[in-house]
Every structure is written in structure tokens, then in C-alpha cells.
């Protein structure tokens, strides 16, 4: 497996897709940090708190979205890009027959490729997060506290798991589909489905379970929202955005987004004093586990499909 891993890693780092991604990310993160820093400085004057630095990651500008929004958008793309042609490009290139007639288990081909993609992404992400932090420090002139550093680190791990999940989806599709065009389109379609349609579907189901109109009681509204949130959690996109928001926003103390109705039902929610890292982790623990479980499912499916498959060189 190590042989496969090192070859793939080398391939990734010399590939065009890697270079293009680095370029894109540098530009985008620079822009995100710039606008965030502008707004954070204004914010601090109005509303001083202990957690200033970390807002570099979550604050959006008038025209540009926040760093977090950028990463949640590009994470899946990066994952899919490093995985979608892992197996089928070797199949069409005729190298798969040659590799699989060497003494190595088939799953180590998948593992080696996944791991190489994962390490590449980990390095890329580390560079992004570090770069953003350094830029942030330079821009707002405040050093992060240790709690903030810890939160940023947890966010990094969380992001890796998320991107790793999409990498797993990409690799699975590269096993399932013979054509790289298909194996690129399918994971992107899945992503767009979760991104766009999942909340619509969740809304529809919630409407059907707990219909509300403008005369509804706050309790009913909250119930409606709870149903919608629970269903939306099926989506890895929602899992990640919720978890990363909790990790990067120390003042968040519930899983659910804070709405007018919820605050009416539960006045405690108006308490915005920051919580400890441990408490935030407790909230996001299930998210992390579910993300890992989803990745494991992709793996299992890839193995099952690939292990006994016939390998013809045409």
C-alpha cells in the first residue's frame, strides 16, 4: 500500500488540478480575510468580546461571503476532484490490469489512493487555515487566544473529515462508473442535491407533519423548525455547516439556528455568553461521528464492488 500511496501523492502534487486549486484558494481566502478583517475591526468597537480573532473565519462582508462559507463551498469540490477518477482512469488507461497482477491486495489500491488524496487535502487545508490565520493576525493586529487556536484546530479536523467524505464519494464513483465523465458528474449532482434540494424537501415534509401559517403559535413554529432541522441533518452539507458554525462561534449553545420563535419559546437562548470548547465539542460530537460513518459507508461500498470485480484490459 505504501508504494501506491507514495506514487499517488507524487502524482497529486505535480498535477495541474493541484496547482489550479492552490491558485484559486489563495485568491479566494485572501479576499475573504480582507473583507472579514474590515468588518471585524468595526465590530470590535461596537461589541467587544473575548473572541475576536476567530471572527475572521466567520464574518462576511457586504459583497463577499465569509471564509467559512468559501470553505464549505470548495471543500466538496476539492474532495471530489481528488477522488473521482482514482480507479476508472487506471481502468481506461490499461494500467489497472498491470497493477492488480502484482502481489498486492485490491483494497490496498483503494486505501493507498484514498490516503494519498487525503494527505494532499490535509496539507492543502493546513496551508489555507494557517495562511488565513497569519493574514488575519496581520490584518486586525490581534493574536488568537489558546481557546481560539483550539477551536480553529477542531474546525480544521472537522473540515478534513468533511472533505474526506467527499473524497470517499469520489473514489466510490470511480469504482462504480467506467467513464470518468460519469464519475465526476454523479458526485457533483449528489452534492448539489444536498445543497439545494434537501432543505426544500425537509421543508415540505415539515409542512406536511406540522402545517403552520402566520396565526400559528410559537410552539408550533418551533416544532415545525425542529422537524425541518432533523430531516436536513441527513445531508452531510448541513452536518458540516452546523458543526463548523458551532465550533467557530463560541456563543452558540444549541444545535439549532436561533430564530424569533425559538427565542420566544426558550428565553435562555438569548444568552450569548460564550461556552467552553468542551461544551461546543459535546454539541458537535454526533456530527463528527456521522460524517466518519458516512465515509466508512463509501469505503465499504467501494470494497464490496471492487474486490471481486473482473479486471479486463479493454
Amino acid at each position, binding site marked *: 500500500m505504501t*508504494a*501506491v500511496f507514495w*506514487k499517488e501523492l507524487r*502524482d497529486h502534487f505535480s498535477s495541474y488540478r493541484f496547482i489550479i486549486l492552490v491558485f484559486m484558494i489563495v485568491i479566494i481566502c485572501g479576499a475573504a480575510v480582507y473583507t472579514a478583517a474590515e468588518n471585524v475591526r468595526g465590530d470590535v468597537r461596537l461589541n467587544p468580546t473575548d473572541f475576536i480573532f476567530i471572527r475572521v473565519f466567520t464574518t462576511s462582508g457586504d459583497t463577499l461571503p465569509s471564509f467559512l462559507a468559501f470553505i464549505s463551498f470548495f471543500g466538496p469540490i476539492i474532495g471530489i476532484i481528488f477522488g473521482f477518477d482514482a480507479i476508472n482512469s487506471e481502468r481506461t*488507461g*490499461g*494500467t489497472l*490490469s*498491470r*497493477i*492488480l*497482477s*502484482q*502481489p*498486492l*491486495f485490491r483494497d490496498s489500491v483503494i486505501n493507498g489512493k484514498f490516503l494519498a488524496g487525503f494527505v494532499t487535502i490535509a496539507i492543502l487545508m493546513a496551508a489555507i487555515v494557517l495562511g488565513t490565520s497569519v493574514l488575519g493576525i496581520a490584518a486586525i493586529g490581534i493574536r488568537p487566544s489558546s481557546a481560539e487556536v483550539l477551536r480553529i484546530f477542531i474546525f480544521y479536523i472537522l473540515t478534513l473529515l468533511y472533505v474526506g467524505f467527499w473524497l470517499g464519494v469520489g473514489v466510490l464513483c470511480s469504482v462504480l462508473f467506467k467513464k470518468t465523465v460519469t464519475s465526476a458528474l454523479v458526485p457533483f449532482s449528489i452534492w448539489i442535491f444536498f445543497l439545494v434540494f434537501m432543505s426544500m424537501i425537509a421543508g415540505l415534509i415539515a409542512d406536511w407533519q406540522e402545517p403552520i401559517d402566520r396565526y400559528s403559535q410559537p410552539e408550533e413554529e418551533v416544532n415545525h423548525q425542529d422537524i425541518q432541522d432533523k430531516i436536513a441533518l441527513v445531508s452531510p452539507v448541513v452536518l458540516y455547516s452546523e458543526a463548523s458554525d458551532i465550533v467557530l462561534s463560541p456563543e452558540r449553545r444549541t444545535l439549532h439556528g436561533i430564530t424569533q420563535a425559538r427565542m420566544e419559546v426558550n428565553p435562555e437562548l438569548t444568552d450569548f455568553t460564550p461556552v467552553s470548547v468542551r461544551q461546543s465539542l459535546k454539541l458537535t460530537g454526533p456530527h463528527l461521528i456521522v460524517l466518519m460513518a458516512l465515509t466508512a459507508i463509501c469505503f465499504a461500498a467501494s470494497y464490496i464492488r471492487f474486490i*471481486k470485480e*473482473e*479486471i*479486463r*484490459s*479493454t
Partner: protein
Amino acid sequence: MTVTVVETAELTKVYGETIAVDKLNLKIGEGEVFGFLGPNGAGKTTTILMLLGLTEPTYGEARISGYNTTFEPLNVKRITGYLPENVGFYNDLTARENLRYITRLNSMRRQEATGKIDEALKSVGLMEVADKEVGKFSKGMKQRLGIADVLVKDPKLVILDEPTTGIDPAGVSHVLDVIIGMARNHGITVLLSSHLLNQVQKICDRVGIIAKGKLVAEGSIEKLNTELFTKGQNAVEVQVTELTDGLMNLLRSIVGVTGIDVTGNSLSIFSDRDVKKEVSKAIVESGSLPIQIKTRDYALEEIYMKYFSED
């Protein structure tokens, strides 16, 4: 009897309705060069895939050096070099780097690998382009690199699926020499599939002919020849000075004659035993004179054609 390297027992592969390989029983001894002959779709590649554990038999089993190919694929792959039908390389790597990757996958030590790579490249005549990207290779060069690729791992058994496709005539004889060299100088067992008979005839100790998944004939070329004789395919070619109806009648009355083809003054007489003497006698008796009489030697091609036209 030498050690058996390849052995299949009732090896069968069924795809839906088609029986690609039908109860194949094969035995190949150490150091042998075995030719696997058959028309397109006969089941050659399918058999080879089963020998390498790249697909599972529907029924029966295959063993390489005693290892079951389905349950002990790693042991099989450690000692077997395989050149697929359409061999592919990483186009952005050089020939040497491509081979290096294979040595790594075989957990060979770096130094040993370097020697083997050079040796393999030299033996197929690709030393000058060793550091060129494979993407810039011609089809024939890739095919030759495929043979080098098989050699680097120092195999005990080499399985080549149509190794000479896409190579020019000079290259073909070079490749055939390399293949013979593997067997003669290194004691490697070679199984090669092909539909090019004259090549197989040149280098193989033994051939197996497969048609529609069934092994229809197997043995040395001489053995296949004699088998044909007993099947009523003995042929005598004669040229006579004068061809008369009387002569034809006489010939037809010879015991064992199954058919006569006439072209001008030349006759091909088919029979199920040697009838040369009776034929010469008949010619003289009819008042004609034989100019030439000879038993026709079956080239492998005819054997091959015969089996393929049988159904």
C-alpha cells in the same frame, strides 16, 4: 515428468447465457512454452484472467505452482508475470519509472530493482528510450515495454496475451527470441495466447487449440498431425500425365479413400490411412504416368483451420 506449473481442472466461466470457457483441463510443465490458440472470442483471455485471479471461475479451479488462483491470489501473483491484451502505462512517467513502480509493488529492494530494470529494458531493446516518457512511445514500443514489465519481477511463469500485436515483423522476431530466451535461459514457463499460427508454431513446445470455450486439441505439433491422420484427413497429392475416367474410378475404389479434389491434372486424394502405394498402382494401371506423388504435410495452419471450420 517435470513439475507442473499451471493446472486447471474443469475450469469453467459462464457469462449470463454464454459459456466463455467450458470445462478446461490443462497442464503445463516447468520450462515449457505453451501456445494457446483460438479465434476471437474463443475464451483465451477469460482463461488467462482466471489463471491470475482477475476473475473468478464459475466452476472448477486453476492452480499455479499448487496455489489456488481464487483463494491464494497473492502467492500466484508473486511468481507470475502477466502481459495484458491491451497493456497500458502511466504516460507521464518514463519507461524506467513505470518499471520502478512495479518493482516497488513487488517489494523488491532498490538496488536489486535497478539491476533488474536495466536488464529487462536491455533484453527488449528499449535501453536508449529508458528515460523517455511512455506517452511518447509508439504502440510497438509499449508492447515491448510490456514484456520488460513482465520480466522485472523475475517471474517463474509468464502469461502473455497476444504479445506480438502491433509490432512490426522485425520486432516480432525479436520479441519471439526474447520469449524463447526466457524459457531456455531462465527456465521460465511461458503461456502465450495468439491467433497468429506461424509465430506460435515457431516457438511453442506445445499448443492447445480452443474454440468456443472448449479445448479441441492439445499437444505438440507433431502429435496434432498424427491425430489428424487417424481422423481421416490423410492427403496425397498427385500429378498425372493424363486424367481419365477410368483412373478416377480406380482411385475411388481404393479402400479408405474419402474424397478426391481435381484441379487440371493435379489430384488431392483424402483418405483415412496411407494409400500412396495403391494410388501409384492405380495410375499406372489406368495407362497414365505419375509425375509427382507426395503426402501432404499438415501445417499447423491447416490443423487450425480444420478445427475452426468444424462447427
